[in-house]
């Protein structure tokens, strides 16, 4: 990366907003626009491809919000610095300030943009989690990021059948296979409490894929997962919860 020049990627779903940012960045000394795109998903691809030093990321975008995109980016080893841009997001604003996360308010002033770009820093996953928690639309990710060498692969949460913790890692089992992720089961349980159920000390199951509960002769319970052969064990304390849930459906 060239120290004297900042390579900037612009992400915004509105074309006029992109155009304006492109022009403003172009007018700044030692700044260069390397790419433009309109969604969070495209942004992740372009970061892989272009390795920008800073990403200007709009928060409210269709598909994947800017905050979620930033969370996925933060898992990269060579993650770019991120500056959020927003018209008005009452929730996230306070968190930005307290977490020292860079953000710009639209319409953006040139001087502020200049300053923000040069002060922009890589965001830590913790910072982002706290920011996301303050915004109801971003509190829950819609994708789980899996690192494949240097790039990211995204698994839609709705394709995830269950998470299983081994000694060191958490594996995510989804309709397209299984992958290792670097997250804790406790945090996943908390984040996806609306759609996932902890059925065992080490297993978090998607309610969407729950098929049936079975009882073995020895008295232990198992669940069957749609699209999976092997049954999953149910912790003794979770049996009641699970039955209540299945009855409620």
């Amino acid at each position, binding site marked *: 990366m060239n120290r004297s020049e900042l390579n900037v990627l612009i992400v915004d779903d*509105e074309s*006029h907003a992109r*155009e*304006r940012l492109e022009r403003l960045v172009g007018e700044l000394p030692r700044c260069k626009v390397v790419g433009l795109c309109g969604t969070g998903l495209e942004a992740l691809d372009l970061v892989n491809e272009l390795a920008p030093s800073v990403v200007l990321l709009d928060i409210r975008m*269709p598909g994947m919000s800017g905050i979620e995109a930033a969370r996925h980016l933060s898992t990269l080893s060579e993650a770019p610095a991120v500056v959020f841009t927003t018209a*008005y997001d009452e929730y996230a604003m306070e968190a930005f300030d307290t977490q020292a996360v860079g953000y710009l308010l639209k319409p953006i002033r040139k001087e502020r943009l200049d300053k923000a770009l040069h002060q922009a820093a890589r965001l830590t996953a913790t910072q982002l989690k706290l920011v996301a928690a303050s915004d109801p639309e971003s509190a829950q990710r*819609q994708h789980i990021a899996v690192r494949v060498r240097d790039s990211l692969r995204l698994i839609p949460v709705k394709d995830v059948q269950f998470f299983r913790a081994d000694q060191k890692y958490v594996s995510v089992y989804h309709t397209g296979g299984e992958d290792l992720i670097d997250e804790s089961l406790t945090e996943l349980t908390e984040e996806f409490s609306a759609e996932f159920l902890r059925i065992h000390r080490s297993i978090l199951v998607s309610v969407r894929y729950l098929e049936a509960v079975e009882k073995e002769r020895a008295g232990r319970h198992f669940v069957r997962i749609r699209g999976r052969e092997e049954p999953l064990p149910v912790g003794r304390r979770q049996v009641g919860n699970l039955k209540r849930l299945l009855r409620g459906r």
Partner: protein
Amino acid sequence: MRPALKPQPMSKSGAIKLNDTGEIGAGESLDRRRPGTSMNTRATTSSRRIAFDPAPQDDFFLPDFCAARMVLSIVLALELLALTLALARPSGTVFLTELARISLFMQWLGLTAAAALCYSRRWLAKLSVPVAALTAFSLLTVNVVIVSEVVFLLGRSLAERGVIVSFFPDSHWTFLLRNVGISAIVSIMLLRYFFVAHQWSLHVRAEARARINALQARIRPHFFFNTMNTIASLTRTDPSRAEEAVADLADLFRATMRDSVEPSRMSEEQELCRTYLRIEKLRLGDRLTIQWQMADALTLGIVPSLTIQPLLENAIHHGIEPLDGGGTVWITGELSDDDIVITVTNPVTEMTGRFIRPGNRLALENIRERLSLAYGERGRVDVTEEEGSYTVTLRFPYEE
């Protein structure tokens, strides 16, 4: 009683000029309209203000005693009072005879009093509250003296002719003084009651109006700042569109800032919606498609201002913006059984559905409240959610 905020167009004649330029036909997208025509339409907007009296009755604390319902209430109240007085008579008197006699006298008394207040109300309304109350009190007292005297004289003249009717009082002064005493107490209580009830209704009305004002002023900040951003961008790339966007935004804000209890013509409200949609179209480009089908029969109708535009704002904010490839907002308006029926439909996905509620509900509640203030039970807001679509339906009586 009539709903307090019922729209009352005071002048139906003249002043209201309607032009029908730029109706958007079905399937025609907004940006195909010529900028020139829309500017012309807007130029006449200000001359189309419609006078609106939020409270049909004036602000005097005495109610209208000529109204049929009021007369009925008086008759009933007097009958209750007569019953009380008859029950309070010492034993030894025949209850039903007492009741009949007291009732007859009191109904005469009450109806003449109502007539006196009915005719003098206009004149009393010009006085200050204490003077008016005192005058009304004197009127009621004079009324009771006159009626008592007439009854007494009638009884005496009948007695002189040899007809003795036990109905009539025999002791002149006791009769008169008792009546004046009872009347004075009841009149004071009644005047006090009317005054308090009036104060209360004023308070309720003021509160409702304040709330409407507060809620109405809410144009989503998100929309405002994004629009400013778009304009900032256009000032360099397309100055004439930037100029138009500034004018559109100004019109929109003017509409939200004017007196909120003033209703709009449907044509005016529609123009406002189009202004709003033009801005959104500029901002969202191909992501936003509008299907607009408004019956021409609605144009002269009256609608509480800013009831339709917030629905569009909701539809775009919650329905279109979160959609990857954008989508279509459907707006229909028709006349059905003398009611104006407006529907706004936007797509919903599993993803957008999750967040549609909180902000949306506030705007819907606001509209629901305003329609019911204006039209009572005849103003309705219904929400229907079907697979993949979310529809809000407004229904309220057609008035010109």
